[in-house]
């Protein structure tokens, strides 16, 4: 029982991060119906940049994080302007391949610039474990989870009460209606990309501070965030959080109990099995919109 509780707590903690990563995907999908398969690569390369600023240039960690956030905004605007905007109106296959290709472009850049090393970010959150009865929580996981929740709350308020957030919601509902209300759809799309990449930067730095900075971090964008996004529903912000926690718990619990049976590494593909099951049973997820198609 203690072991199960421990798995549960670990799952919830890691699930917060997964939810945060998936949030970046949801933001873009919601406004522009583009599944950004390069999200993981952005997350990886922004974490590398943070490491470079902090370790190679010797800047203080808060300044390097700030710099990375600025760069991520610029990158988001740039990607939207030069890659996604020309692709408007093209079939889905084009968008999927374009974002995947962008991911490999970033991976190639990362290999050229940083090699295949594994590096650690300087510690900026304490790592000692806290004991809650029989269950221990590593403090940095708790911090990361707290930051994730804080971001979710901030984004919720942003979408609920600011003009820009409301504009993004309208664009996701119907671009034609948004235009007739005098909202600049192009600007909204650019802003949502910038937002998504800021979230990629934050989640990348958090994830890297939990584990390490390496090129493999890019994979969580595909193998973890996609199941989360699908489970929560492609359009739902809080779905990303709920889905993240479910996937995190599923991964840790199933991995913890199954790995002795099927050998290590099962926890890595467990979310993908979950994804296949969701696709078969309820493709629109828990909170997603069920679309009805007509000819």
């Amino acid at each position, binding site marked *: 029982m203690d072991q199960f509780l421990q798995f549960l707590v670990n799952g919830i903690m890691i699930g917060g991060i997964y939810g945060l990563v998936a949030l970046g995907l949801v933001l873009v999908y919601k406004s522009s119906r583009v*599944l950004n398969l390069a999200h993981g690569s952005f997350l990886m390369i922004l974490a590398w940049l943070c490491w470079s600023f902090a370790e190679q240039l010797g800047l203080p960690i808060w300044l390097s994080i700030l710099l990375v956030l600025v760069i991520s905004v610029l990158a988001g605007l740039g990607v939207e302007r030069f890659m996604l905007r020309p692709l408007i109106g093209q079939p889905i296959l084009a968008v*999927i391949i374009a974002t995947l*290709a962008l991911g*490999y472009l970033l991976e*190639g850049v990362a*290999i050229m610039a940083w090699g295949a090393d594994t590096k650690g970010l300087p510690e900026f959150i304490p790592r000692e474990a806290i004991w809650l009865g029989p269950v221990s929580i590593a403090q940095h996981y708790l911090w990361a989870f707290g930051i994730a929740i804080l971001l979710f709350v901030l984004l919720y308020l942003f979408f609920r009460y600011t003009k820009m957030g409301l504009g993004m919601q309208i664009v996701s509902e119907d671009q034609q209606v948004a235009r007739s209300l005098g909202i600049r759809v192009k600007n909204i799309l650019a802003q949502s990309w910038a937002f998504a990449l800021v979230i990629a930067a934050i989640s990348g730095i958090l994830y890297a501070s939990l584990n390490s900075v390496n090129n493999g971090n890019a994979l969580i964008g595909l193998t973890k965030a*996609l199941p989360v996004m699908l489970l929560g529903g492609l359009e739902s912000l809080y779905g990303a959080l709920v889905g993240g926690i479910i996937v995190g718990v599923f991964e840790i619990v199933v991995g913890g109990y199954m790995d002795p049976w099927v050998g290590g590494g099962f926890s890595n593909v467990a979310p993908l099995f979950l994804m*296949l099951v969701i*696709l078969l049973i309820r493709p629109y997820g828990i909170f997603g919109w069920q679309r009805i198609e007509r000819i």
Partner: protein
Amino acid sequence: MRPAGTYDTTYGQDMATVRTRAQWIMLAVFLALLLAFPYFGGIRWIGVFNLMGITLITVFGLHITTGLCGQINLGQAAFMAVGAYTSAVLTTKLGLPFLVALPCAGIMAGAVGLFFGAPSLRIKGFYLAMSTLAAQFIIIWAVTKLFGTAAMSVRYASIGGFLFDTDTKMYYLIITLTLIAGLAALNLTRTRAGRAFTAVRDNDLAAEVMGINLFYYKLLAFFIGCLYAGIAGSLWAHCWSFSIQPLQFTLRDSVWYLGMIIVGGVGSPLGAVLGTVSIRLLDKVFAPYISPILAAAFPFLRANVTYAAGAILFALVIIIFLIKQPRGLAHWWQLIKASYRLWPYGY
């Protein structure tokens, strides 16, 4: 666009793939050059051609699943792995002849493809991409669990006592199978199934209303596409005999195969050929050529410049093609053909 004076007078002429005497001559010269290639091409080029041939078979498969039927498949490399390992186990562990192992590899990959293609009835677009993406990771995980990450040695292919133990001998086997696969892919468009695939790609709901059995044809597209992948995988296993490992069939490769049909032109068999040849040349010939120059020019670059340069070049080519010429190289070829046929009165 046909040149003036070329008429079809019979139905057979109208349907023919090779129409005129000039085309027959060009085809014969091309085939002769292809067969004679080992006598004037270097050994390195034979290796490149073998890789191109195997890739081409896989890409033809993907052309059928994704290009013709519109079902996005992000797991083609994993289906290749299924074929490669099936063939390896059948010939090396069980001692079956290659001619049995080759179709078995194809059918096995096709069966796995059916399993992962089954969700395609309910879902499409991004959702199907996710499902096949899951297939990619799950299959490779299963292969790693079953056979380990280490390189697995495979016996040489042999047909009736003839051992394909050199690159040159493999070259002829691969070329033959590639030609057959290409011909089949070309002719598929003219069959009932091919027309059904096109209808499903253009609008699957409308196709269903017209009386096309969606489930059957979508699964058929997956089966044929993965069958091609399995055959290519089997050839891969026997071509570089002492080194098949799960690392050779990653998501990156799946994306490359999709990229090849994009660069070539989605939905055209000629496009599959053009895309494969140009991307493989870029990756295997151009990237190794420029990477020492890059490494010398920018000494701060790290190891693996060839790999990274290949990835960057490929990604840039794909993105530029998607933005500037979504219809691919095949469309350019059509434009060139039309312009020289109409010359000098190209109105």
